[in-house]
């Protein structure tokens, strides 16, 4: 972009404005890419086209990296270590433990009452003690031990490779689901889970025994982040 050409440009612009197209002029003067313009109106139009093309491609290249690595998603992709579920997942597991226990407690109580009413006798005291002790132990287990263990044993990692999950207390399992094998993704949230802002992420693959791999206890934002990122990648896969 030497001086001479620049001067020529200005002259061209003036000529163009004389020709009546003031729109072109204003656009052109504000544009820095008009370096290889010739004398005529025709070439002016050509270069303008070229410059708009250039700027549009710039736009694209400006958008592309943004789509690939949106700032919000970087936190997920850059995971190197497996992490625990959302802190509130533990509370959620406890609440669901309490609900399950409540159901068992109700059934046990009703069962006992119905049994002894139908037998028309009072239950022996030791049976009541055993039942209460059993239920107490079950309550302790279902509300305290199991949710804590479950939380401690569940870890996940989502990175460039895909989703890696480890879970299970007695039967421990680790799943590795590569990104390219994910067919579709579900993020679900039950009413109770909504209360704790927790979601269940389900990855579906074309496999058989692990056709869907699910992870309950991610924060809803995280689950959506992962889903969105997999969706973007799917879009690029398709192209």
């Amino acid at each position, binding site marked *: 972009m030497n001086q001479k050409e620049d001067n020529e440009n200005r002259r061209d612009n003036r000529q163009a404005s004389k020709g009546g197209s003031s729109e072109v002029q204003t656009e052109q003067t504000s544009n820095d890419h008009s370096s290889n313009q010739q004398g005529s109106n025709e070439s002016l139009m050509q270069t303008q086209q070229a410059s708009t093309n250039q700027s549009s491609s710039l736009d694209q290249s400006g958008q592309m990296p943004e789509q690939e690595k949106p700032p919000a998603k970087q936190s997920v992709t850059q995971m190197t270590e497996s992490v625990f579920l959302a802190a509130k997942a533990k509370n959620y597991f406890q609440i669901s433990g309490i609900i399950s226990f409540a159901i068992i407690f109700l059934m046990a109580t009703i069962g006992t009452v119905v049994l002894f009413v139908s037998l028309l006798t009072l239950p022996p005291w030791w049976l009541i003690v055993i039942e209460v002790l059993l239920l107490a132990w079950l309550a302790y287990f279902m509300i305290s031990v199991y949710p804590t263990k479950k939380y401690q044993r569940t870890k996940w990692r989502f990175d460039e490779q895909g989703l890696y999950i480890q879970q299970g207390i007695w039967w421990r399992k680790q799943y590795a689901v*590569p990104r390219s094998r994910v067919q579709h993704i579900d993020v679900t949230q039950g009413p109770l889970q909504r209360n704790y802002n927790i979601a269940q992420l389900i990855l579906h693959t074309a*496999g*058989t025994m692990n056709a869907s791999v699910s992870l309950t206890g991610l924060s809803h934002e995280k689950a959506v982040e992962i889903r969105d990122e997999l969706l973007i990648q799917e879009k690029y896969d398709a192209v």
Partner: protein
Amino acid sequence: MTQYKDTDMSNAVNTEKRLHPMSWLFIIIEFIKHFFVPLLVAFFAGGGDSYETLAAVFVIPGVLFAIIQYWVYRYTLAENEVMIREGVLIKNVRHVKYERIQNLNLTRNPLHRLFGVAQLELESASGGKPEAVMRVVSLTAVEEIKQKVLQAKAAVHHDDEETDEASDSADQRPPLLTIPLSELIKAGVISNKGMLVVAFAFGLLAQTRALDKFFDWLEVSMGGWFEGINFNMDHPLSIATMVVLGIIAFFIFIRLLSIIFMVFTYYGFELMRSGDKLAAQYGLLTQFNATVPEQRIQMVSVSENVLHRYFARSSVRIATAGGNAAGQPGGARKMLRWIAPIIDSQRVNDFLAAIQPKVSRNVEQWHSVAFRGWKRIVRAQSLVVTIIVAVSWFKLSFHALWFSLLMIWVVIYARKTVASMRYGFSDNALIYQSGWMVQHTTMVPISKIQSVELRENPLDRRTKMASVAIDLAGLDMNRHHISIKYLERDVAEKLINTLYDKVSATVYRWK
């Protein structure tokens, strides 16, 4: 609504086609197969009184159903899709793109052949049921549909691959595998398929109370055969003799059934390659035609039992995506699973190279599992032996202790089995071998692996072991697949990571 339908009809009327006029017959037969066998069994077993009522309640509506079904079933071969309309109350229109059709399965039993028709199944990769079952169409119609599908396939492949020119001239090439009758008889002797027939027959007989009569007859005639020999049924030796004789007789019976089964199923077996597809054709009475695109093969498994090895033969099985027929009623739907029901063991390598030329099977380094795993098998099996001894104690008292000799067998079996398990990576596949009496080698291209799993059950954790399993499309869990047990914990951890890296680096392709 009606107006729309009318215009639609008038547009399509010149291209819309019906099934073969004899279709109603085959629809009735299918109807009877699915709903009537249990009913008839119950009916005859119950003693046939209300013959007419049964006919009035089930047969007449069945026939009507079949005729209506034939009447409403139409298909249109459009430019790039097949459109199928069916249904009376609930109308159903289905569009299937030719390029999405993965498999064309053709079945012809003697009745089909009498009328010059075939049952055609169109399969996509979706798994479960086929996209369309045409029961039945004429052979010219089959050819027409086949042409459409093949043309669409060729067009798609010419778009993204230039190497497909061979597909037209391929039919002249010699078949990959043909199985003569002598080989089929061998296959029958080797295989255990007779068990299936026996199980089926027993199931049927048990329902019709014929089984009791059969056993009565057996008892009477056995009494006749063994009159001369004085059996004291309380003596363990005579029990043992009876058991051995019974097992031998049963074995021969099973083998005979197996031979019949193999000859009927695989008579005239021919496997050919045309382009990137494998086409197989077989069957004595019911002929079966199947095409499988090579890309759709998810897994190849070679198995050899003791008899296989005696005859120097092998069997090769494949798993294909979307073709898991498990849970299909009556096993009515067949598919190409045994791509080589029997093959000379020497030829296996060439054969595998021919069906999957792009998959390498050279393993540089094999890895074995933790040998101490055999102790776990022994521990589990000793429980079984204990139960056998305990149960037979009632009958044999202290003689039952002889059964504890089974433990010798258990130890040998456990050690040999664990020693036989090994896995290794080729350039683009994972290969797993296991089995002592029955040896299996299963090969899975890395790109076909869907996900990887590491499992640790409580026993694994006590012995610091773990197992690694890989998941595939169309995996048959009841048969040999890659699920490597008795790995050292850290080895398993490394293996799942290696697999994860390798799988992530590849792309899965349906076609």
